[in-house]
């Protein structure tokens, strides 16, 4: 039998389950492994001493109350960790818009506004609209039944493997000034289930001093199962600011993402019922309501919410499919979103809108 590995020896130091069987028998009769075992256990002991700290004494009851209080005072879901006052305000405004947009797309998805999108439309929204939607978690429970596994990689092949073999889109030519430093990313397919709860919804409306709109029959306990991804992406730009703290990152110059179109299934209630119920929630503006109702069949349209004060949007044609272009030609920030052959594509960055459209049209 070959000698025991350092990992096996290390485990034998302090895992009672590892001190039996063939490995233990080998150690018993092998002076070389015994010598190595001594080294490994001495190291383990000295590191344990180095890491020793006085135990933290906790008051579980009081801590639980603090957590519950905090939770109730927070509108769940919307968080902008990337927003910091010190960074460039214009670019950040755009990134915030995109981030908020992505969250609202999720919120709409959980609300069951679309099932399998085949085209995209932009919807102007106000910040108040977005905040109202972020509170959807007050109307039920959201749980991952299959958690997304995100992986940042240095090779396209690894990213593709992380996304179950989904091939990466290739940018034909980068615009001038965009760094060729690229990070790849892959996300496995993820499945989330949202379960509506009449009690949560009523409690939440009451907390705001509002009355809950009448619930459609069957809404309580209705579930929506959302499947997102797999997805792959490329991020161009040197993200780590040289010589700065690790939590201070540069904004990427260009991001290209390809994702399987999200799909959603519902139980107990129809799409239209869900749409109407969500639109009737307190706090959603008449403008948003009108915009969504004007879109038409929600089961085939991916809504791209555009905060009206941050960006402008135009309908464009990308590789023969309808798409939405966001931003302008100042180079501060622009993006394109389109759906083709069951995949959603996004090209976004601190580039000109025309450049984003060119990249999108030449993406392979």
């Amino acid at each position: 039998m070959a000698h025991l590995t350092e990992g096996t020896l290390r485990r034998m130091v302090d895992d009672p389950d590892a001190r039996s069987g063939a490995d233990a028998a080998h150690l018993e009769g092998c002076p070389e492994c015994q010598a190595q075992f001594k080294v490994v256990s001495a190291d383990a002991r000295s590191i344990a001493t180095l890491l020793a700290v006085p135990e933290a004494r906790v008051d579980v009851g009081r801590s639980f109350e603090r957590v519950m209080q905090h939770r109730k005072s927070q509108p769940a879901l919307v968080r902008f960790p990337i927003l910091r006052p010190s960074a460039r305000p214009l670019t950040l405004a755009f990134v915030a818009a995109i981030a908020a947009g992505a969250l609202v797309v999720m919120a709409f998805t959980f609300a069951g506004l679309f099932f399998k999108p085949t085209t995209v439309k932009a919807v102007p929204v106000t910040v108040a609209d977005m905040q109202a939607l972020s509170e959807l978690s007050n109307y039920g429970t959201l749980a991952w039944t299959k958690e997304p596994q995100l992986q940042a990689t240095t090779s396209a092949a690894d990213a593709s493997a992380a996304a179950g073999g989904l091939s990466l889109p290739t940018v034909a030519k980068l615009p001038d000034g965009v760094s060729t430093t690229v990070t790849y990313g892959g996300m496995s397919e993820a499945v989330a289930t949202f379960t509506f709860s009449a009690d949560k919804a009523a409690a939440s409306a009451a907390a705001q001093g509002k009355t809950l709109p009448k619930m459609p029959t069957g809404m309580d306990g209705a579930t929506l199962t959302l499947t997102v991804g797999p997805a792959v992406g490329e991020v161009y730009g040197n993200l780590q600011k040289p010589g700065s703290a690790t939590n201070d990152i540069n904004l990427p110059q260009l991001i290209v993402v390809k994702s399987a179109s999200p799909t959603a299934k519902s139980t107990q209630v129809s799409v239209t019922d869900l749409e109407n119920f969500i639109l009737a929630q307190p706090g959603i503006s008449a403008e948003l309501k009108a915009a969504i109702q004007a879109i038409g069949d929600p089961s085939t349209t991916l809504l791209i919410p555009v905060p009206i004060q941050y960006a402008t949007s135009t309908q464009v044609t990308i590789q023969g499919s309808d798409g939405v272009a966001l931003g302008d030609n100042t180079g501060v920030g622009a993006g394109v979103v389109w759906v083709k052959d069951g995949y959603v594509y996004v090209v976004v960055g601190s580039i000109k809108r025309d450049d984003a459209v060119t990249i999108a049209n030449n993406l392979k």
Partner: protein
Amino acid sequence: MNLGARRMATAKSDEEAFEALFTAEYARVVGIANRVLADPHEAEDVAQDVFIDFHRLHSASAQYAPAWLHRAAAHASLNRLRGARRRQKREVAQAMEEGERAVDPQKQLEVSEDRRHVRQALGRLAPKPAAALAMRASGLSYAEVAQALGVGIGQVGTLLRRAEAALRKEVTRGTSN
């Protein structure tokens, strides 16, 4: 049971499940963060943030709940450790705290200095081995560490061994500088 009562029961059981999870895991989650940060107050801050994040997106009855919490505690506290702002704040706070202590201030200073030094070294390790080390040192079993990191139980020994060697190297390097 009528429909209304059943609804109440479901909502109640959600909250109850979260409370049960909190009661079972809070001290362990704090323990992991404290092992990384060597600061019980800050460790509690991290632990509470971790539970708030968990509760926002996950069901408390999910099977993966403890593993998720352990991993999040290790990563969140390691991230804090790496933040430059924290280090500066810590140094000021520590100096003040040590100044107030009556018992052998010189010895206290040395202990705090060592701990800070080890934490800085820990912050320089790769995330996975560092997390394995913090979890195991705070008392999680090999099986629990394996689950939290999504690796086979056989790999935990290798991760620990690698982390211990790397930490020793980092500590020595920091001292000789």
